[in-house]
């Protein structure tokens, strides 16, 4: 890698995907102000019923982070269903202070032609044609869908519009799906409208295992995540070569600052792949995966993953 690439690779703290008590959120971002990240994404992207923080609170957090030198980006919701959801989206889009990450086409419509925005990971940008369209509407950065492989990202970047920033999901449990149904409420035999906000009891989501004991998924309200933690720490050089210039790190309830520090060292070229993996291992809430990056099932780990609790009788293809 060359010195320019090292200098220009940014670290971004992704939006908080879980529901934490207000004080925990405020404390988290007070700490984040001192972490070596370049961009911080803020706002509630998963569930409109989560109201520990209002938009004004997120803006206030953003102002503190901006004073600490961070580039602040407000994210819109992953799923818009109701009029209230639309009003919230417009309030975020029109916040006037910070750049906005659009996570559905209603948000793109609200932001189009009104200045730079970020094309979020849920916009399904799988090809250069779609990326060019969004760039024409004002997107100055795009976040690749989690399914896109290294080669896929490289192909989009190679044929896509020049100058647009490319961000990849470099660390964290992968947001895999969203539903109208709340699976945390369902687990508690509650409906979404009367959910009692139970996801606040699960600061890293609710673990779902297979019947033979494999840690498989995480229920996070209406969102479903991977149980394994995707980590691109061992392949940062590959990510740069593919054209990624922003690495997204997804918040978890513990050790996020230390994870950021590992990635900062790795980006600066001060850590080998093996050392990065070793330093991250005790900071991760579950085993690592990176299959998507290598064009394989996302659950896999390229360099010799031993999947947990898989029975002896299993027939692997």
């Amino acid at each position, binding site marked *: 890698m060359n010195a320019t690439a090292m200098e220009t690779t940014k670290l971004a703290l992704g939006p908080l995907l879980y529901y934490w008590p207000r004080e925990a959120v405020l404390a988290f971002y007070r700490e984040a102000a001192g972490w070596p990240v370049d961009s911080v994404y803020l706002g509630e992207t998963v569930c409109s019923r989560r109201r520990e923080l209002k938009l004004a609170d997120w803006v206030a957090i953003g102002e503190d982070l901006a004073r600490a030198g961070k580039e602040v980006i407000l994210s819109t919701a992953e799923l818009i269903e109701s009029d209230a959801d639309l009003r919230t989206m417009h309030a975020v889009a029109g916040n006037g202070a910070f750049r906005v990450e659009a996570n559905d086409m209603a948000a793109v419509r609200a932001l189009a032609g009104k200045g730079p925005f970020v094309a979020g990971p849920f916009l399904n940008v799988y090809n250069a044609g*779609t990326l060019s369209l969004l760039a024409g509407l004002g997107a100055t950065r795009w976040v690749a869908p989690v399914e896109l492989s290294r080669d896929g990202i490289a192909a989009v970047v190679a044929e896509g519009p020049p100058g647009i920033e490319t961000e990849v999901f470099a660390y964290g449990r992968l947001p895999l799906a969203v539903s*109208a149904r709340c699976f945390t409420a369902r687990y508690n035999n509650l409906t979404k*409208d009367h959910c009692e906000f139970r996801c606040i009891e699960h600061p890293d989501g609710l673990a779902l295992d297979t019947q033979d004991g494999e840690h498989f998924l995480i229920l996070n309200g209406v969102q479903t995540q991977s149980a394994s933690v995707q980590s691109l720490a061992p392949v940062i050089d590959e990510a740069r070569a593919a054209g990624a210039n922003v690495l997204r790190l997804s918040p978890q309830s513990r050790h996020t600052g230390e994870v950021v520090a590992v990635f900062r060292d790795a980006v600066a070229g001060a850590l080998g792949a093996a050392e990065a993996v070793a330093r991250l291992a005790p900071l991760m809430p579950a085993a690592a995966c990176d299959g998507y990056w290598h064009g394989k099932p996302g659950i896999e780990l390229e360099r010799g993953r031993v999947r947990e609790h898989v029975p002896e009788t299993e027939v692997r293809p």
Partner: protein
Amino acid sequence: MAQAAPLSPKAPARMKLVCPAGTPPALRVAVDNGADDVYLGFKDETNARNFAGLNFDDRSIRDGVDYAHRRGAQVLVALNTFPQPSTWRKWRAAVDRAADLGVDAIIVADAGLLAYASKTHPQLRLHLSVQGSATSHEAINFHHEHFGIRRAVLPRVLSVEQAEKAIQRTPVDIEVFGFGSLSIMVEGRCALSSYATGESPNTHGGCSPAKAIRWQQSPRGLESRLGGVLIDRFGEEDHPGYPTLCRGRFVVNGDTYYPFEEPTSLNTLELLPRLQAMGVKAIKIEGRQRSPVYVETVTRVWREALDDCAREPQRFRVKPAWQEALAGISEGRQCTLGAYHRPWK
């Protein structure tokens, strides 16, 4: 700031019946039994039912268009997956093919592909696929303003009240799902399948691909695995279903249950008068992967129901014979109203 569009009720009109065809025989029985529109796909990953033995080549599409047009039906081609990075030109070629074959509309999810189609084939009617994840009138109107879409298929996530509001605020005709396999996740927003198998609807045109499935007998029962992941385990009394990931039984805090959804089918027959009154323009039947017998049964029942509803909506009653016929072909033999019924959420 939210745009407060006026609520202008649209005059109820007869709803179109949109039926699936995975093969030419299915297309013919759909047309013969009263489908207004039949939708189908090419034999490749440009459509979201990319399964072996399914779908159409150019000749069978020409024949199908001819068969349908002679009987007053229309043919829609689903190009409803996301063009992949290195092969995206293949999807553009598929749009050109569909236009050349004289189909009545194409059903598209990807914004870039819609842009191409609207620019290159301005006469070709565009429908926004459910995979386009347009869950509000504003998202639908985005596609209308930029690509001139004429119809949009609503994701199966909205309640009846939410769907009605969307209809009132868009000039685009709205199609909703009436019957078939129920998607638990927002269409176009689910990567569970690729997490376990490397292939998803967005990337390869299929969920839980057959080649990733293993069935095996174990001391604890018959096990179904997807990409090696145990999806479910069946006893003697169970009816083993296709191991779609979101229909599996998993364990949360020691409880073994269906964390996402039981194996059920969506069936909105009882909502027909309401859907008609609120201005839904078309009802979609899921199931291009299903047999001609399925297509024949479901088309016949829904044609009769839609005709009854159009004739005398106030007196519309779901006939037991319809429900019986549909129950025989439903997944898991149970039916649900899904998200249309708010407590489902």
